[in-house]
């Protein structure tokens, strides 16, 4: 495929990753920090940005590791372990660099980085990249798109929860209960986007 077509496809993949195939609302990946951190918009914003950054970078690193190490050696079945090692090392490295060179960024985002390592959306994005056999350029679009999709979902949830903060919710449903109900309703709404893109 020519570079132009690849970039086109990257854009389509990105848009679909945000709306029609939102990694959180359609595939239910990354639910744990989603429920835990979506109480305030400020925290959700910080975590969402961190997820976009980490997801995009690690999915690209994983692409390189998969196609240049695992595939030539026929070790594709090791991808789960390898991807996790790469994600963990990357997050560790980023935290170190941020702490040294930007104390401000560290205060805002640094606290979320350990939370992201075990966010299954990050691993999930890398595995989808393998299953769907994306090229490098398309993977860029995929990484940015799914990160942004996750960001969008958690920001929307935070906004809704902040509105609900002073409302009276039945005792048993307070917290995670009502959040899951809201997430379900959001997923239903996002299904409305199906068919927006041709062939998706």
């Amino acid at each position, binding site marked *: 495929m020519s570079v132009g077509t690849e970039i086109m496809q990257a854009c389509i993949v990105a848009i679909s990753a945000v709306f029609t195939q939102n990694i959180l609302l359609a595939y239910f990946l990354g639910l744990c920090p989603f429920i835990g951190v979506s109480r305030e918009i400020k925290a959700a914003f910080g975590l969402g940005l961190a997820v976009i950054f980490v997801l995009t970078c690690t999915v690209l690193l994983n692409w390189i*590791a998969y196609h240049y*190490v695992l595939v030539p*050696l*026929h*070790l594709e079945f*090791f991808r789960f*372990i*390898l991807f996790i*090692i*790469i994600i963990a*090392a990357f997050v*560790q*490295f980023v935290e*170190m*660099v941020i*702490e*040294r060179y930007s*104390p*401000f960024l560290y*205060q*805002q985002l640094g606290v979320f980085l350990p939370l992201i390592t075990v966010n299954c959306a990050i691993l999930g994005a890398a595995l989808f990249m393998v299953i769907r056999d994306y090229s490098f350029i398309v993977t860029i679009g995929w990484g940015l798109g799914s990160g942004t999709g996750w960001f969008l979902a958690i920001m929307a949830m935070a906004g809704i929860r902040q509105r609900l903060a002073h409302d009276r919710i039945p005792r048993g449903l307070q917290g995670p209960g009502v959040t899951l109900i809201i997430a379900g309703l959001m997923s239903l709404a996002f299904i409305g986007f199906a068919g927006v893109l041709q062939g998706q």
Partner: protein
Amino acid sequence: MIVSTLIAVLVVSSIGAALAALLALSESYIANYGECRITINDERELTVQGGKDLLSMLTAEKIFIPSACGGRATCGLCKLKVLEGAGPILPTEEPYLDEKERASNVRLSCQVKVKGDLRISIPQELFAIREYRARCTRIVDLTHDIKLFRLELAEPGTMDYVPGQYVQLLAPKYEKNSEEVYRAYSIASDPAQRDVIELIIRLVPGGICTTYCFEYLKEGDEVRMNGPYGEFHLSDTDAPMVFIAGGSGMAPIRCILHHMKNTNSRRKAVYFFGANEVREMFMMDEMHRFESELPDFRFVPVIAKSDASEAWDGETGLVTDAVQRGLQNASEYEAYLCGSPGMIDASIKVLLDLGVKDTGIFYDKFA
């Protein structure tokens, strides 16, 4: 089959090992700050290993900066001017620095991380502060919620202080308290006895240090404190003085009265001591002794409401009302106040109304 298994294991292990090595290397390079020079007041220089916060570096070099929270950015006492090398203000510092302070490079030294060379400015008074170890030799109940603690200094063995100053007492970890904190208490003892510090402490509900002092500290225990701190002290003039202090606020006044006796001061003084009920009065004997030992000292206890059951023929009502009634020629007087901001504000108002000059009003506000 075995070979391919071995290769597989080898490949993944070596990738893992390579990443771990990369991280370890980065850590020693990125997170290592090397040696940093801290220049104090443009005269003294310290060379330290970078990476920790400024406050702990200075404390390790025996320079004591006031701090009550142990570096967790919850007390705001450790302010210092960092002229160069501090980096941007952190969110944890922001609540404690106002416009003027930010403009003059004031920072919270417990939050400033030493990553390179720094130039800082420390006020001269802080150099006189030392950490002391002492033994609690006597605990006296003064009222139902006030006790006197007699602490004999062990190391260093003596403390030089100006009457009116305070120390920061360390409350160690105990059952309900998981952190060490420092709390300030005025020195109440006779300054001539340089090896003894007495503190008058009132139990505060929920108070970390007072709970320790009242429920855990026993005679014979060792305590730690640092000091002396504070700007509250007698002036150099001969003007007559009015003291207004209630409860544990008596501490610095008692210290000052001892000092007056020691120096044969002939200054006229009157002390208005306010309390809720008769049972909250204490050290009456000592105050009466001062009345006879000092040339011109009058002690005026004021009870808010006297119960019919207790015989009381002294002043009643609010202490500020008693001052209003009892102070003649107020404009000549200097005022020394120690107590809660509420009491001090009310007293200042009354004193100004009576004609006391506002430059002659000194106070040790609890806050």
